[in-house]
């Protein structure tokens, strides 16, 4: 069986960034499409049929975030956002609009490659979700609503289980504060981030060996939480 190279669309208006991404990705067996503007990106999405998009947020014709919004109306393709530091608000918006990951410039090729590999693998796996989620010593049996840590059953309150369940269904991906609040407590509580923090603290005490240095339930500072995927351990 020959593996067909995954196609990656790189959207960035800086030629030197496109160049280094193309060299790096092609060197590791990916096929690379390039777009220097929002218009070109949307066209390439249709004509090139990529498997993953690396999207810079600062584009000359339109904000990258707008491209993401439009894209999400008809496609669930993994999207990686490229941005500069100190733009946390932008990060939150990108995740809320359905970005899969976020890479801050300057970044190294190995880091990007590892995340791309994980995202592509998750995409294949998510087509057949396992009823039992396993990462390290944590097991979440979604069918029987059972949670085990190092083979010992852990009792969770209904809300705690619901929170964990939402994270499991998005395992490996960042879920924003707002998404979690809406899914667990309803839209009326979408801005109660501090409550969520108190709640996560309680959940960590049940799941983590050292809640001060969590292994499973990770904080994405200022954005949300992420349940570690097995390939992220």
């Amino acid at each position: 069986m020959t593996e067909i190279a995954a196609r990656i669309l790189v959207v960035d208006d800086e030629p030197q960034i496109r160049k280094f991404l193309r060299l790096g990705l092609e060197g590791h067996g990916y096929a690379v499409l390039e777009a220097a503007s929002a218009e070109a990106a949307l066209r390439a999405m249709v004509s090139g049929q990529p498997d993953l998009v690396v999207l810079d947020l600062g584009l000359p014709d339109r904000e990258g975030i707008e491209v993401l919004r439009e894209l999400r109306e008809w496609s669930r393709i993994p999207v990686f956002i490229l941005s500069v530091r100190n733009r946390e608000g932008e990060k939150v918006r990108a995740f809320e609009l359905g970005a899969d990951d976020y890479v801050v410039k300057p970044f190294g090729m190995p880091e990007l490659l590892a995340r791309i590999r994980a995202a592509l693998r998750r995409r294949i796996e998510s087509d057949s979700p396992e009823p039992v989620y396993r990462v390290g010593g944590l097991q979440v049996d979604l069918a029987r609503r059972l949670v085990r840590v190092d083979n010992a059953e852990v009792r969770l309150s209904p809300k705690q289980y619901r929170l964990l369940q939402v994270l499991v269904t998005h395992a490996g991906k960042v879920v924003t504060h707002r998404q979690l609040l809406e899914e667990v407590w309803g839209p009326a509580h979408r801005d109660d981030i501090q409550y969520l923090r108190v709640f996560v603290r309680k959940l960590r005490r049940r799941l983590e060996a050292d809640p001060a240095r969590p292994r499973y339930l990770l904080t994405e500072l200022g954005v949300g939480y992420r349940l570690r995927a097995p390939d992220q351990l």
Partner: protein
Amino acid sequence: MLSDAALHIRSINSATPYLMSAALVAVVALAAHALTRLTALPHVSILFLAAVVASAAIWGFWPSLFAALLSIAATSFFFYSPIFSFRVADAQNVADLAVFVIVAAFTSRLAANAHARAIEARRQQQSIAQLLAFTERLAGSATDSELHGVILEHLAPHLGRPIWLLLPEEGRLAVAAALGDDSALPEPLRHAAERLMNAADAPVSGWRLELLATAQGRVGVLVAREPGAPADRQLAKALLGHAALAIERARLRREIADARLRAQGEALREALLNSVSHDLQTPLAAILGSASALESFAEGGDPKVRCELTAAIRDEAERLASYIENLLDLTRIRAGQIAPRLELVELADIVDAALRRKRKALEHHAVEVALPPDLPMLRLDLFLMEHALANVLDNAAKHTPAGSPVRIAARLEKGEVVLDVTDSGAGVPPQDLERIFEAFYRCPGGPERASGGAGLGLAICRAFVEANGGSVAALSAGPGRGTTLRMRLPLPEPSALAEAFSDD
């Protein structure tokens, strides 16, 4: 012109004590009449003293004098023979009345004095309370606009509304704050204020203009629409005095800070120039050199050497990136663009994020984290604190030999959370413990290329921690015995923590 209606109201108000005094005398007369029916009263006039004293205590001297006269008339008319005549025949009754007049005069004088003193005391107490509240709020004002707001709010009841505060700005008076009217101050009023500021009194009818002045000079003018009745003049004067002092103090504070900033600015520019020329050029030279060496090998060359050269390019580029990042942070701090977004957060999250960010720098160190599980949440800006901590960790990694441990520990102490980052490096000599927080400072004994941030990391750390209401200091047990960077972070108000989410 004061309106007729106002005059009318005034006369009614001032007549009331007399009417009430007369009523009191009438009541006493009725009571005396009833008593004389039961038993013979030799000195009826004594009873009327009660009315006189009461009138004096309640309404003051003049109404009580009126009550005394009425009392004499009533006694002689109703009680002393011949009855129903103002004539008094009996010599003893005449003596009685004479004594009554003297005693009434004295007691009413005394009672009236006490009455006046009580009123004065109450007024003073209120004034002092108002003044105290005012000075307290002046002292508690963090910004100029807050200060101006407090001044207007406290003076409007005394001067009138709308009210404007005018302060000198670029050689002319300009409105610094307004209360009760969003519209602009009419230009003629501003001119009048300007004249007042230049010591020429210029009354404007219907408007009250008050100069704010201290012993050092004039600081500004308050303009208000004059209210109907003048309020407590003495209190208003005291309030004006305090307001002037507060404005003057704020101005001096600003000037001193500006002067200090200018002096620091000079020194900083020089240090910055030195740093840029060295810390930018060195890594660039290394990158260019390594890249051209790689190119010169073309196809050939030792693979090991090629690897080393590419690694050198990456390392130097990373150094450059971290240097530029620090320079950008420093620029933000200098421009006063650090606006912390405080929210309740877990210190553990911040520590974890900083450790993840500095994973590479710390890869040759054993990092030990000791955070008590019951540490309260803190009200902090996540990103500023994470950055501050990352800089401290970076510093620890760079100043300690590979393999030596770095310890992060937190504890609760007297209303603060104390976060220590301890390394086991060379330590810092006591005279340099403060200086390491200065921008561009480098430890003299430290490694040559110690910090990729060119001595900026700890300066940024301090600025960020202070922006979060905390403080940071360095401690060292002595040369060769390591350094502890101690951050003190304030606990949030208890009310912020009281809210918690129910589990169900």
